């Protein structure tokens, strides 16, 4: 894992003091709310329905036990004993006081953490594959590149007042576990003629106008990674729309200019920038790589004792193949039946921290599906791990099932939401768990957003639910056929919306159509792609 040096530490410390000063000026009336808002947002501080909300960055989703413990302690000391893991691998607290915010940032800085640029119209936290450095199928570990980008994007003087927020994702496997093409820039580390480089996908995103990012360059040499990113950003900063907030994301610019013209402008800017010395020295990348080197893996048992069916089910569902055959990556589900997706109490965070230390080389990951990963667990330790997880209500065996849904905070917490997301998630998981259907359905990605901003990734759900406001009442639109993975696609709306009971019934109906029509090993998504929308519509509306 990356360790700060004195420079990195000084940067986050300076940021804490900068924010402390900004908060002081706000409280003294030297800053109006309009002036303060972008400043607090760039430190992750929102004003939500019930209080301020603080979003803490977990760069590329990687953290250690000490950091997880610090997050737990902040939850207990400054919040109401829990936090919420987000689809961008971050953590947010729901009950924060403005007068405490700088102290919280100072507590974070003590463990090399921060809330820098977790909101605002700037480059956000860099996201990545949650199995980075552990997966059997990756080309290299993408995190050194993500760290290089983290430093470059932190306090970037030219790109702090972009037209709109800007999200970058880096992966290094063909399998996309991070929704790479639904980012403003998706970077895929690739190999070409024995050389490692980066493919750039630009202009993806969800929100009210979902787009899949087109590739604009299939290979950027690694010693030009930052320069190329800078060129992409400069074209956007200069020409992204600022007349309409809803058309300000880079996806609209790329769409309106067309991929070719946007690419031409980027290449022109890139050619200019190559002469400007913006790229960090090559040695910096070489300095970063050893931080992410493999721990010392030991050979051991390669099979599990399946005598306990509950344990066997959890192993089947919640573990992922590791690059070393005596290890797996273990997924800790934050989706207990009828629970709040992504929420964890301070005590649960401490349990996860302890288990990471005990069983996973002191490392944890946050998934965009709002779960936690212990990346390197010995197969021999799995039963002991599972037993302790289960005791802490962290052992739900449901990864990638309908119960493992993504849900945004929705109208229960969020000032932008039109409808609640969490109660739907709770009722659906309970219903499918009780009926035993979860098992039959296999991989089924359900994603629920409480408004058109799509924080719950509904466009990318095999089944998506979007909450809308219909004459003051919550109403839900159903969509089918989305995917955030390497087979990326955008879901299509089935038809008229439903009330809360209606949409839960509708989810049941579309899963019944799937069970009826599926062939062989087809997933819900495969069946939908084969048979199209018509049979589902028929079941829903006729």
């Amino acid at each position, binding site marked *: 894992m990356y360790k700060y040096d004195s420079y990195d530490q000084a940067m986050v410390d300076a940021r804490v003091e*900068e924010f402390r000063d900004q908060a002081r000026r706000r409280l003294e009336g030297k800053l109006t709310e309009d002036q303060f808002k972008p400043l607090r947002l760039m430190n992750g501080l929102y004003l939500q329905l019930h209080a301020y909300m603080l979003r803490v960055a977990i760069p590329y989703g990687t953290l250690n036990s000490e950091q997880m413990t610090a997050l737990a302690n902040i939850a207990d000391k400054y919040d109401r004993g829990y936090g919420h893991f987000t689809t961008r691998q971050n953590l947010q607290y729901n009950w924060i006081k403005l007068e405490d915010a700088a102290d919280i940032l100072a507590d974070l800085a003590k463990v090399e953490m921060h809330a820098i640029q977790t909101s605002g119209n700037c480059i956000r936290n860099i996201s990545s594959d949650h199995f980075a450095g552990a997966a059997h199928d990756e080309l290299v570990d993408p995190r050194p590149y993500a760290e290089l980008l983290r430093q*470059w994007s932190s306090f970037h003087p030219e790109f702090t*007042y972009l037209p709109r927020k800007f999200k970058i994702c880096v992966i290094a496997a063909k399998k996309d576990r991070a929704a790479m093409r639904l980012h403003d820039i998706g970077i895929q580390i690739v190999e070409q003629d024995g050389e490692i480089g980066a493919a750039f996908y630009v202009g993806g995103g969800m929100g009210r106008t979902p787009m899949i990012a087109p590739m604009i360059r299939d290979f950027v040499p690694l010693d030009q990674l930052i320069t190329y990113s800078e060129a992409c950003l400069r074209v956007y900063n200069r020409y992204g729309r600022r007349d309409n907030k809803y058309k300000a994301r880079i996806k609209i610019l790329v769409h309106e200019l067309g991929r070719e013209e946007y690419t031409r402008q980027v290449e022109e800017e890139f050619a200019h920038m190559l002469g400007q010395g913006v790229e960090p020295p090559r*040695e910096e990348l070489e300095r970063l790589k050893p931080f992410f080197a493999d721990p010392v893996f030991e050979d051991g048992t390669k099979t599990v004792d399946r005598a306990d069916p509950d344990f066997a089910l959890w192993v089947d569902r919640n573990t992922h193949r590791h690059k070393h055959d005596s290890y797996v990556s273990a997924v800790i589900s934050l989706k207990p039946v009828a629970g709040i997706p992504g929420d964890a109490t301070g005590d649960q965070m401490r349990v996860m921290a302890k288990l990471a230390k005990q069983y996973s080389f002191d490392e944890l990951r946050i998934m965009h599906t709002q779960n936690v990963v212990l990346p390197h667990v010995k197969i021999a330790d799995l039963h002991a791990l599972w037993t302790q997880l289960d005791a802490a209500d962290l052992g739900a065996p449901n990864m990638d099932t309908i119960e493992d849904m993504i849900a945004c905070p929705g109208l229960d917490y969020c000032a932008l939401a039109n409808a609640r997301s969490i109660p739907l998630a709770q009722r659906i998981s309970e219903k499918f768990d009780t009926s035993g259907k979860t098992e039959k359905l296999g991989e089924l990605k359900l994603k629920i957003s409480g408004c058109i901003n799509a924080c719950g990734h509904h466009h990318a759900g095999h089944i998506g639910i979007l909450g809308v406001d219909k004459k003051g009442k919550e109403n839900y639109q159903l969509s089918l056929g989305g995917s955030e993975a390497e087979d990326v696609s955008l879901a299509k709306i089935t038809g008229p919306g439903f009330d809360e009971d209606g949409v839960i019934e509708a989810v049941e109906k579309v899963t019944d159509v799937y069970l009826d029509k599926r062939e062989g090993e087809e997933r819900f998504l495969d069946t939908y792609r084969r048979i199209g929308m018509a049979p589902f519509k028929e079941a829903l509306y006729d």
Partner: protein
Amino acid sequence: MTDRNDLGTSPDEVQFRFRDDEVVDHGTVTVDACCDQTNATAVRIEPGDDARLLLPFLDRLALVEVNFPSFGDGRGYSAARILREAGYTGELRAVGDVLIDQLSHMRRCGFDAFAPDAPLDEADAERAFATWDNVYQSTVDGRRTIQELRHE
């Protein structure tokens, strides 16, 4: 920092200036006018203007003002950097809705004079200019980056 009372009759009152040369005290023209008019030495860039149109005339320009009608519109940061990258050495002045918390970034993008619509608190501004002891990005301000310092 030069005393703000000594800055002459420029239409925008310059509050902070990091140059020793004489202040340009005559009015600016638009980018379009500057391109048409061979003798203009001071120009004002609005957010939608293409700063690169000025590149052929940089030698004769002594002052470029970059207007920030609203502090949230960040196009002026790119405009400033582009001019400096092209070798412009005259005064680069941020004018308009220039606030405390933008000063350090503006400075890094090449601005060396600041004429905020509303005068800024001197102590707060002093602190803001000095926010970062070190920096992660290579820009046009000539500062060695953290990455460079690590590998010296």
